[in-house]
């Protein structure tokens, strides 16, 4: 019996198990999946928690509900991947040999990477919203806040869901307006990027929204440390920004176990072939989702497109056929812009977000690089799609590779 081992049962690992379990021969392949947590978190939902739109129960479900019946699921932290011996050591003492390994251990925030960030003010007037705990603590803070200066800071790139900080400031503007205190709150987005987003046309488009909503944008700011006693954020070149409330998107890093096993780069992301998703160092290891070092966005939608290609490549690998170099970096992100509206962007490695209609050219119902109510409904429906279709590995009516149909070059 051969073993296909999947490390990480989050978005990408769960999808892969669900795609592979029905097609791999039970008598030949045992699929084993390992994760340290019993609970599956719908991370895109964390964004809505600080504003009381979602609560804990909207974003958690038991992981086991989503694993296919004929797979072996083990709940334990992974201790070490010993790639030279084709085996993985778990913290519970178990050692798992594998023939084929899929790594889907995601990325996490690493606030300890920034001096002072987890000091004095941590979860008092400094919060993250990339963890459930951070988002819930921020909710408690915002309930009783009567205004001041809110700074939202991206410490360094890359981060997962690079549009989330923008959505956060848009939703905050809406929330404070509803609370009747918008005139008492100053909102400033502080980023290491040269603009509001990574890609120029979208950066310009989204920048206009910041202006319209009276949100200040400070670019090219590389955060070095936080003085939690005096409420100041400093850059490496000693520029200082005052805050009353600091919402941080800390450094994002791959799992510690990746670094410990010698499989990662300086941020513990795994060097991966950007078109086949095969690890660059070991041919029987494939990598998917936030765990890769690919120059694509780290997002659930990206993991979904990758899963279609990885599924094909795992089967090809097993049958000894050449891999398909088909992943094009496709990403598709709904951006909540507040007041019940949203923006949609669709792009890949080579083509930046362009305006148009999606997914049906000329028809929609969604509009690319435009603010509409329909796009907001797309975002809100994504939660249902995530739990009911995406995680189960179902096909969505969107091609894995990006399409130019319905898009306009400017």
């Amino acid at each position: 019996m051969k073993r296909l081992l999947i490390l990480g049962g989050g978005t990408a690992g769960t999808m892969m198990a669900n795609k592979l379990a029905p097609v791999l021969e039970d008598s030949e392949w045992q699929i084993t999946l390992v994760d340290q947590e019993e609970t599956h978190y719908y991370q895109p939902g964390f964004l809505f928690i600080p504003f009381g739109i979602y609560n804990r129960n909207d974003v958690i479900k038991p992981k086991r509900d989503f694993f296919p019946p004929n797979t072996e699921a083990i709940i334990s932290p992974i201790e070490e991947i010993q790639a030279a011996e084709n085996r993985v050591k778990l913290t519970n003492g178990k050692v798992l040999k594998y023939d084929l390994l899929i790594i889907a251990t995601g990325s996490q925030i690493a606030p300890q990477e920034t001096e002072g960030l987890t000091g004095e003010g941590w979860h008092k007037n400094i919060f993250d919203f990339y963890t459930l705990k951070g988002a819930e603590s921020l909710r408690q803070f915002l309930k009783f806040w009567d205004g001041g200066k809110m700074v939202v800071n991206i410490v360094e790139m890359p981060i997962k869901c690079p549009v989330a900080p923008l959505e956060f400031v848009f939703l905050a503007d809406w929330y404070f307006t509803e609370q009747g205190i918008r005139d008492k709150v100053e909102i400033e987005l502080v980023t290491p990027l040269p603009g509001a987003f990574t890609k120029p046309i979208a950066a310009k488009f989204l920048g206009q929204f910041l202006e319209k909503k009276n949100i200040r944008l400070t670019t090219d700011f590389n955060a070095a440390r936080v003085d939690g006693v005096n409420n100041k954020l400093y850059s490496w070149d000693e520029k200082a920004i005052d805050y009353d409330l600091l919402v941080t998107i800390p450094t994002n890093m791959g799992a510690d176990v990746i670094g410990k096993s010698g499989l990662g780069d300086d941020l513990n992301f795994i060097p991966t072939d950007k078109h086949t998703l095969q690890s660059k160092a070991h041919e029987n290891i494939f990598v998917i989702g936030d765990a890769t070092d690919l120059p694509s966005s780290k997002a659930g939608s990206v993991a979904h497109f990758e899963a279609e290609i990885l599924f094909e490549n795992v089967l090809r690998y097993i049958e000894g056929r050449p891999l398909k170099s088909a992943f094009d970096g496709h990403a598709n992100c709904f951006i909540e812009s507040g007041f019940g509206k949203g923006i949609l962007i669709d792009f890949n490695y080579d083509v930046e977000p362009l305006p148009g209609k999606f997914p049906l050219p000329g028809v929609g119902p969604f509009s690319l690089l435009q603010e509409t109510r329909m796009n907001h409904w797309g975002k809100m429906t994504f939660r249902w799609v995530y739990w009911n279709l995406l995680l189960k590995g179902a096909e969505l009516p969107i091609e894995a590779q990006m399409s130019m149909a319905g898009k306009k070059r400017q």
Partner: protein
Amino acid sequence: MATKTLAGKTIEVNDEGFLVNPDDWTEEMAPELAKEEGIDELTDQHWKIIRFIRQDFKEKGQIPTIRRIKNAGGVPIKDLYQLFPEGPVKKAAKIAGLGKPQGCV
């Protein structure tokens, strides 16, 4: 493609003045490239970083990130910002005759 004369040699550069072929670079060109970036004098500290990123580029095929220069090159990030103000990796890469570091996504 634009060209530029550095240390008496004419070489290809892109529209932002980055060398197109890293192999065209010689150490004599670095002081001139540094002046373009507002750095009047290259100290031993500067050279340590320039040599590290060229070596790392040769081995890995990509320009190291600031974190890699810190971890593998042993240079604190604070020093990097003092030596190459504002955009350390971008400036150091340009002076070292490498392309523009890959932007993020």
